């Protein structure tokens, strides 16, 4: 039986397929709700994943990832508030369409574009990942250490408005990662003789605190505010055949662009969607209609942001380095469920990889089905009051923190990092760099230690490998690019 058919029979079995459906549906809901992003969705899913088989957990995670990226478009179109950052470009034409009474068609186009983007990027992932993984099998600790350094340079691109604050957040994460027993020497660093600190801060409660609980505190700012609602009746989901033929010429290039951008670490859906929007507008014969409700202005960003999903999985699965915030959280999730991404995963657990490939592809079709079927339900999701939503999520956060180690201490850790995360966010310190530091720090230190053991403490071993030097080179390029981008995006005079 071919590996993909094997994967298909695994995913389609009754004991696994419902988890994919739940993942996609949950992702759409999470993505649609402003304030909840794909990262938060993945984190909220973690307590459940821990009790599933790794392959099942992985397909559920994929469903959540893809569903959330698509779901962001719903609130962007209906209430002009992107559910996720990658749907920000969809607001530009999606909301004017809703104002014209064409919300149904806008969501329909977003669904078709997202599905196409997802399918194209999944195909690229299926073809590219095994080749890259085969090449990465040659990597030793020196190359892995260089790779982790490259992964850490993503901090620069997810730093938010201030690079200095982003880097501080990243190094703070690395410092937190240094707490606990050092793997090489067995010495408990910064434990202050507190038994709970001997093993360091548990990763899951830190993730829950930094992303989910801090967001709940931020949402307190919306108490008493009149939030936007979509009250019109939704009708007419499908574009006409003439419109579809015109849109497909936009959707396919945008999907390819999104996939390509997704593969590059440090980019992500937001960049891809704005680039696709700009390019579509630039090549359009009717540029003036953009921003006033042009269907192509919805199709291009949605195809591109869902195109990044499969693309971002390539470096994550083959090299173990996250490309953006969601994949950084995904990496943490994979480590927690006992799946260590990297080339060995392809060699040792091909069934997990096959299930993931098939699950990812089926998730796209589920997005199409659930997206088109749920058009009339979506405005109701947006009506859930925050006074119900966030207290329930808070209770789930605490339960999730507890359930991994059955520890009340872990609940306290989640709350502590929730408060820290809240203050950091409030003062412009992005949470993503810190999480990258917490996740990649120990991996980088471990590989460095291994490399030094093998070379009997000779540090020059780190620059002997041409592959390692290549990664150091692109790390420098990555940081330089982020610096230039940040400088360009700053208004004059600032």
């Amino acid at each position, binding site marked *: 039986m071919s590996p993909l058919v094997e994967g298909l029979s695994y995913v389609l079995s009754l004991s696994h397929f419902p988890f994919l459906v739940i993942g996609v549906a949950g992702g759409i809901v999470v993505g649609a709700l402003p304030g909840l992003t794909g990262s938060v969705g993945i984190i909220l899913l973690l*307590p*459940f994943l821990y*009790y599933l088989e790794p392959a099942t957990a992985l397909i559920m995670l994929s469903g959540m990832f893809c569903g959330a990226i698509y779901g962001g478009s719903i609130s962007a179109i209906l209430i002009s508030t992107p559910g996720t950052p990658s749907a920000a470009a969809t607001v530009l034409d999606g909301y004017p369409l809703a104002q014209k009474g064409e919300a149904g068609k806008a969501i329909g186009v977003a669904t078709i574009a997202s599905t196409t983007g997802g399918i194209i990027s999944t195909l690229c992932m299926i073809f590219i990942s095994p080749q890259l993984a085969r090449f990465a099998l040659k990597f030793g600790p020196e190359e892995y250490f260089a790779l982790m350094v490259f992964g850490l340079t993503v901090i620069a691109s997810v730093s938010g408005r201030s690079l*200095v*604050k982003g*880097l*501080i957040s990243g*190094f*703070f994460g*690395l*410092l937190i990662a*240094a707490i606990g027993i*050092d793997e*090489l*020497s067995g*010495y408990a*660093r*910064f434990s202050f003789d507190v038994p709970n600190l001997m093993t360091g801060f548990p990763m899951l409660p830190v993730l829950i605190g930094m992303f989910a*609980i801090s967001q*709940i*505190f931020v949402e*307190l*700012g919306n*108490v*008493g505010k009149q939030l936007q609602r979509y009250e019109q009746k939704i009708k007419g989901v499908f574009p006409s055949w003439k419109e579809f033929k015109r849109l497909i010429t936009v959707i396919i290039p945008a999907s390819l662009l999104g996939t390509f951008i997704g593969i590059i670490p440090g980019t992500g859906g937001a960049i891809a969607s704005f680039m696709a929007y700009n390019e579509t507008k630039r090549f359009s014969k009717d540029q003036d209609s953009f921003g006033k409700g042009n269907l192509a202005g919805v199709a291009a960003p949605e195809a591109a942001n869902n195109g990044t999903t499969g693309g971002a999985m390539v470096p994550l699965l083959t090299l173990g380095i996250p490309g953006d915030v969601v994949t950084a959280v995904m990496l943490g999730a994979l480590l927690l469920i006992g799946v260590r991404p990297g080339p060995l995963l392809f060699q040792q657990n091909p069934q997990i990889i096959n299930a993931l490939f098939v699950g990812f592809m089926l998730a796209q079709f589920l997005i199409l089905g659930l997206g088109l079927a749920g058009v009339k339900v979506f405005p109701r999701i947006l009506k859930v*009051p*925050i*006074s*119900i939503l*966030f*207290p*329930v999520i*808070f*209770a*789930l956060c*605490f*339960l999730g923190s*507890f*359930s991994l180690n*059955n520890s*009340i201490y872990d*609940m*306290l850790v989640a*709350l502590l990092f*929730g*408060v820290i995360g*809240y203050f950091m966010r409030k*003062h*412009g*310190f992005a949470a993503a760099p810190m999480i990258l530091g917490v996740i990649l*720090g120990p991996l980088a*230190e471990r590989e*460095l*230690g291994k490399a*030094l*053991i093998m070379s*009997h*403490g000779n540090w020059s071993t780190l620059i002997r490998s041409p592959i390692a030097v290549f990664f150091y080179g692109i790390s420098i390029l990555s940081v330089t690019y982020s610096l230039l981008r940040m400088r360009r995006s700053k208004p004059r005079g600032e």
Partner: protein
Amino acid sequence: MIASEIVFGALFMLLSIFFFAMTFSFPEITIALSPTVFPRFVTVCLFLLSTLLLVQGIGKQRKIKPVKPREKIDRAYLLRFILLAVAGFLYTRIIRYTGYVVATPLFIAAAMLVFAEKKWYRIVLISGGTTAVLYLVFRMVFRVPLPRFGLW
């Protein structure tokens, strides 16, 4: 008003100095990677970056005109934040004595009140219903040993 860059710059600076000083109590290992190397590298970088942030903050502070009105602090928001954080803290403290089934609806109800929920039937239904669903899923399906009332 002091720029937040100054406060956070100083805070991270002190933190890095404290943690750097602590590394001198770690054992030195000559083979391979000593447990001091990684934390020292991180704390030195953190110190340099927080210094930069502090300098940025001082520069920003000078640009702030003295006539600029003081930024209004939303007291209601601050109070809600404190109440929610305290409710969360109390929840983690009482759950070991009262058990999950008693502590959780109380916590959810408190959080709903902080989020300005006024309808009492919603508070009762959501706090009780959520606790029941979560208990069933995690205790019955996943077999997680959730905290129980001390006398049970």
